[in-house]
């Protein structure tokens, strides 16, 4: 049996929401034009770190997400580097109309950071779980949508969002995310990262599922399958070039995300593949349902979002690929 040679040692890491809060406070020290709005969740979104240091530049909006989004739009329109933050479920669903007419349509330079995304928030249950945020954010014309996998990527992408002139949604999670990257690695809007090289199949993942993809690739390697792992942290725009190359070079792609499977990253990758280099595809995500209370680990397991599920999807894809004579 081929010895397992993991390219990445997954280390314990911080939650991406905490990395966001830390990066935001750093930005605040560097740029006096950075302002932040939050809707009574600053201790959870970690914008409290910024609020503590820069109370005059932090605006508590109360539990009023719609107003918060438009307040942010006004601040940004007047030249501020404005961030608004809440749970993804609230800022996108309650603020969607405001995101559309006061941010996307006039193309206002506002940064929206949604934390507690996906079902891994755990015990709080489905009312707080955002399983459609990538879909909603991507549907806003002109929006950039980012979904970092670990703390290093989050800090870099918070900076990339602040430096970019235009609306950005950044998706963060509640639970500690395995550390994948080393400090100083670069991330750019429209980019992606190849974490493991492979030739027979590509796992294109985002957020927490990147770590699961790495674990799945190791399992597959032990089975003699060479799987490539791509971190698609830029959901919109997508790294079309990396996706086309994956389709052409590996002939099979599995997309894995902690999001409704019918409206997230998978459909965007499928569109890119369909119009360039069609290949076998499988999709790992939340089926057409809402989850429930439980520990994050229990939920990810029950709803099919762990390495086991990613590896199984890869085996299905490989079977189809071989059956179709596409090897």
């Amino acid at each position, binding site marked *: 049996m081929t010895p397992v040679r993991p390219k990445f040692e997954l280390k314990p890491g911080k939650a991406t929401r905490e990395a966001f809060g830390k990066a935001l406070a750093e930005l605040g020290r560097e740029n006096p034009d950075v302002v932040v709005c939050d809707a009574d969740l600053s201790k959870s979104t970690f914008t409290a770190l910024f609020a503590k240091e820069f109370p005059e530049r932090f605006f508590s909006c109360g539990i009023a997400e719609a107003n918060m989004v438009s307040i942010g*739009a*006004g601040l940004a329109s007047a030249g*501020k580097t404005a961030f608004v933050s809440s749970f993804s479920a609230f800022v996108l669903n309650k603020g969607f109309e405001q995101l559309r*007419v006061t941010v996307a*349509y*006039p193309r206002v330079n506002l940064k929206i950071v949604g934390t507690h995304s996906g079902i891994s928030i755990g015990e709080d249950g489905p009312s707080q779980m955002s399983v459609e945020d990538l879909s909603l954010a991507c549907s806003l014309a002109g929006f950039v949508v980012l979904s970092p996998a670990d703390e290093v990527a989050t800090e870099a992408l918070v900076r990339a969002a602040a430096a970019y002139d235009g609306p950005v949604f950044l998706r963060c999670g509640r639970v500690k995310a395995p550390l994948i990257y080393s400090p100083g690695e670069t991330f750019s809007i429209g980019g992606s990262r190849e974490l493991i090289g492979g030739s027979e199949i590509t796992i294109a993942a985002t957020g927490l599922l990147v770590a699961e993809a790495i674990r799945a690739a190791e399992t597959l390697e032990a089975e003699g399958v060479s799987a490539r792992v791509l971190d698609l942290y830029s959901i919109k725009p997508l790294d079309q070039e990396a996706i086309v190359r994956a389709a052409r070079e590996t002939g099979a792609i599995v997309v894995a995300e902690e999001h409704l499977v019918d409206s997230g990253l998978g459909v965007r990758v499928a569109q890119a593949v369909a119009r360039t280099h069609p290949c076998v595809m499988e999709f790992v995500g939340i089926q057409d349902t809402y989850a429930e209370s439980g520990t994050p680990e229990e939920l990810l397991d029950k709803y099919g979002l762990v390495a086991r599920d990613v590896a199984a999807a890869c085996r299905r894809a490989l079977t189809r690929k071989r059956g179709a004579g596409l090897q």
Partner: protein
Amino acid sequence: MIGAAKSGHPGGSLSAVEILVTLFFDFMRHDPANPAWPDRDRFILSKGHAAPVLYAVLAEAGYTPKPALMSLRKLGSPYQGHPDKRFIPALEASTGSLGVGLSVGLGLALAARLNHRPWRTYVVLGDGEIQEGQIWEAAMFGAFHKVDNLVAIVDYNKIQLDGFVSDIMEIAPVAAKWSAFGWHTIELDGHDLSALRAAFAEAEATKGRPTVIVAHTIKGKGVSFMENNPKFHGTAPTPAEVQAALQELQA
């Protein structure tokens, strides 16, 4: 304008004429030759369907071309169905979906305060518009954060699309509601130029809280057959009605 477009909102445009004229030609600090002047006062027409009155004022002030006014609502016109800052860069916000403009204005006003700049923000709201919940989120925010460099003006013309406001969703008592939310409240006749001017000056002198001017107006003001007639909330006049209206307005 609206007659040529064959669609639009004449009633709520006519009710707000004196409010906009006082702001643009008497009270606000702005420079049509330098629309991006950083210290200009900001204006947002939150009741975006009254775009025709805003376009007439912007053209008269010199921000936008007058002859093109008759292209209202036509493909490629700067005079879009509702104000669109992609087409008129001098606009501070694109509006049309009701309820959002006050929040945007509060964000602008906060930026002025953070930058220690003297410019002020004016937001015109419809009376039907304040049925939107976001208005009251914004009202709470404005008072809590003491945004005293912003003035909201409610064009209280008593009529909305489906009929009289009091029949669709009663909003009275309007001034008492804003007062209860912590705003400095002024009630006046929205067609009285000197009262409007005095109110804007009073607002500027009011510190520690935002000001709302509840302007009692007449929908369709100045055109007898449009006045207080819900039909002309969102219906364009016929060519004959246009002639009759212009004769009355020019008389």
